[in-house]
């Protein structure tokens, strides 16, 4: 699936395909909002929650890896190389 095709889907359709095919990358909390990042094919999807895994504030899609920095802090490198 291409990013623009995903963006054309309804919210329920987006959640359905993310649930079935999205690959979890990481999450962080900032200013009371939880953000969970998934990868789908060649792009990324941020699901931003007002309440963790319950109420979604918005969904944001992108392809640039420069936006992945907030998630890198949560990755424990020593566990990956051990």
């Amino acid at each position, binding site marked *: 699936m291409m990013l623009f095709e995903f963006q054309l889907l309804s919210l329920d359709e987006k*959640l359905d395909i993310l649930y079935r095919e999205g690959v979890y990358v990481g999450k962080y909390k900032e200013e009371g909002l939880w953000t969970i990042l998934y990868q789908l094919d060649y792009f990324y999807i941020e699901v931003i929650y007002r309440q963790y*895994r319950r109420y979604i504030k918005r969904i944001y899609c992108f392809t640039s890896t420069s936006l992945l920095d907030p998630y890198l802090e949560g990755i424990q490198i020593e566990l990956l190389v051990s």
Partner: protein
Amino acid sequence: MNSLPKNIIVYADDDPDDLDLVKEAFSKYSQNVELVTFDDGGSILAYLSSFENTPCLIILDINMPILDGKEVLVRLRKIDQYESTPVVLFSTSCLPTDKIFAGQYNAGVVAKPLAMQQMETITDLFIDHCTEDIRKRIRR
């Protein structure tokens, strides 16, 4: 008055947010279910190794440091007491490799919910892995 003993479900997850999520999901069955939680794989394995009874369901987060959910599952299946106990791997993604692995060890896979609609069905997905007798006792 409810005189039957509660059905014990044990759950390990290193993510406190997901622990809270599942605790809340099972709160509607609090009369019939006692949810015992752990924040790492080693603790749940130590608890189960010395547990005299057998829980009706074991829920294991896949991604835990030191001892992940898959390793806990492998070790549990080597213990006679847990050879056939229902186990669910609780995953952040629906990866085919996780489903294949779980199938090899007679376990199920449930993906963590993305929104309220899925949240409402998650307890049912867990309970569906229990034996028929236990399912009736939990939902009575």
